[in-house]
């Protein structure tokens, strides 16, 4: 137990700290803190889902923001059409993301390495341009949501605290689920296919199926993040799906520490907080932020998670 605690202190600490946010927020500018933290948690959720692909599957998707966008647009379009029920939003978002993942995954999985990066970028961009062409829903100016998603007809998410807790709950659930998956038979095969697909085929696994399944799971989780993001922002636009957004998610995953899952959460916190604090400090914050990233790569092997747990690994 003690050993386990030693190994697990980082994820435990992370979630504890996140759980304390609503308690501590009223001491400061509450709505701002909650808004910022909700964004962090949502981005962490998206990054977490991407870590399954990159860290475990070796599949660097450069179009992951598209899934985020699908979630957001599910809320945007349904709300614009008068459907405000959160359950409906989630269902549509997840179904649409699953469809997108199956359709594009079947093609993308034919390639690997850099080609996979580029083909996912291509699909992400197609979706992005599709969204900009949706004149009925604001085109690339996007649409403002009339309000947040309702739950069973009640407006519970209108409270920033409730929205934050919902996001945190989703993050925790996804984290536990993905941890199980990573340690399961399925996860083992996925990792094996990352390291040596030919060997995997030679012992009787078809990497394609496992990768596609991982892609599907990841896309659906990202779509949930998209639903939450739309609710947090109160606004949906193609900017959510821009390739820079996909890039940012990759950076967060790598920065946090590939394949460790909690690293993705850590990465999201570090990335967004650094951005927020630095940009508050100076408009030229990027002149510091860039070198910070470089230093992080050069000196923190295994990302932030690796840096923090270096001593604790048995």
């Amino acid at each position, binding site marked *: 137990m003690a050993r386990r605690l030693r190994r697990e202190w980082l994820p435990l600490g992370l979630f504890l700290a996140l759980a304390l946010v609503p308690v501590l927020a009223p001491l*400061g*500018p*509450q*709505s*701002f*803190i909650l*808004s*910022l933290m909700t*964004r962090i948690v949502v981005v962490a959720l998206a990054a977490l889902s991407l870590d399954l692909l990159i860290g475990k599957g070796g599949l660097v998707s450069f179009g992951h923001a598209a899934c985020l966008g699908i979630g957001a647009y599910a809320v945007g379009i349904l709300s614009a059409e008068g459907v405000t029920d959160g359950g409906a939003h989630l269902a549509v978002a997840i179904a649409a993301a699953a469809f997108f993942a199956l359709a594009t995954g079947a093609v993308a999985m034919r390639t690997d390495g850099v080609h996979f990066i580029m083909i996912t970028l291509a699909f992400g961009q197609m979706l992005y341009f599709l969204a*900009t062409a949706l*004149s009925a829903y*604001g*085109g*690339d*100016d*996007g*649409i*403002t*949501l009339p309000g947040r998603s309702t739950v069973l007809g009640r407006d519970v998410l209108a409270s920033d605290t409730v929205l934050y807790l919902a996001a945190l709950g989703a993050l925790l659930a996804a984290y536990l689920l993905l941890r199980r998956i990573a340690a399961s038979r399925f996860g083992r095969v996925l990792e094996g296919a990352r390291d040596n697909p030919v060997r995997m085929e030679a012992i009787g696994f078809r990497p394609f199926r496992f990768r596609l399944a991982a892609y599907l799971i990841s896309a659906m989780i990202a779509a949930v993040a998209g639903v939450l*993001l739309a609710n*947090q*922002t*109160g*606004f949906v*636009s193609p*900017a*959510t799906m821009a390739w820079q957004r996909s890039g940012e998610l990759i950076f967060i995953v790598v920065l946090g520490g590939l394949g460790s899952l909690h690293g993705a959460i850590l990465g999201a916190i570090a990335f967004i907080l650094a951005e*927020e604090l630095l*940009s*508050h400090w100076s*408009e030229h*914050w*990027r002149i510091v932020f860039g070198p910070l990233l470089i230093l992080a790569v050069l000196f923190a092997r295994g990302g932030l998670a690796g840096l923090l747990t270096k001593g604790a690994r048995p």
Partner: protein
Amino acid sequence: QDKIKVGLILTLSGPAAALGQQARAAFEMALKDLGGKLGGREVELVVADDELKPDVAVTKVKGLIDRDKVDVVVGPTFSNILGAIAKPVTDAKVFLISPNAGPSPLAGKGCSPFFFATSYQNDQVHQVSGKVAQSRGYKTLYLLAPNYQAGKDAIAGVKRDYKGQIVEESYVPLNTLDFQSELAKIAAAKPDAVFTFMPGGMGVNLIKQYKQAGLADRIPLLSSFTVDESTLPAQGDAALGMFAGSNWAPDLDNPQNKAFVAAYVAQQKAVPATYAFQAYDAALLLDGALKATGGKTDDKEALRAAFLKADFTSLRGAFKFSRNGFPVQDFYLTKVGKRPDGKLETQIVEKVFSDYVDSYLPECSIK
């Protein structure tokens, strides 16, 4: 009385930062010219950068309102950011003053008593070109815009007053570098005039290439947001003689404006564009309104009434607000020319609309 807090949110970093930079410089200049006070109260300015990302912008304005407790928000630069922050700001019953973006939803169905623009409703600027094309009797017009919402709005705006023949409605992808093929089409179509809306770097590319292709001397170019003082330094002499629609120009003849332009040029080593002037006016608007309320911001009704009166001397001359918070003002056709100091600027050719009211006003339900 303690200080009044103003939150300024603009796109200050990334590729599209030039406009926001102008706006900030001008706003700060205005504060200085007003002796560091608005309506007699000391001012504390909190500047935020929206990074041109809607969700970042939302967090930032929440920070301004909640953490910094600003009394009023001025910004942003771009329409899509305005779309994202308008609701959170006005829902918090904080006044939002846009120094540039003026999207149609906020003028019509989505209008808010807490929103004012010192700029214009976007369509109006494009309408200038349509009206000019019509009144000059151009028989054929070639329309060129980037393929995104603002581009579509621009083309819709031009078509409203132009009744001649549109030979082509051409949309190019956003961030197009090379207009060679468009120019070939234009040369082949031989229209009486071209209208384009090509903001930022795209406009620079288009204008340079338009000139290089030898079209500049043959086919007049009407535009909006394509040749202005933010792009002219890059476009150089290639832009000479190009037309644009505007609610203002640096050479607009009134004493305040002359002083403003001279001071801006001295300080920034560049000629101000509308983004600068509108931000300057935003500060003047605040000053005027706060003077009227005696510096108080608690009584929202009174403050709104004070804003609506627009009791200040705008750099553009007299103007009023409609009840949707958009100005009723004159619009001009401008043309790129050289200043005595050799710098380029847009210069007024003629007044096209007087006291022009935007066409979305009827949809606004505010009394």
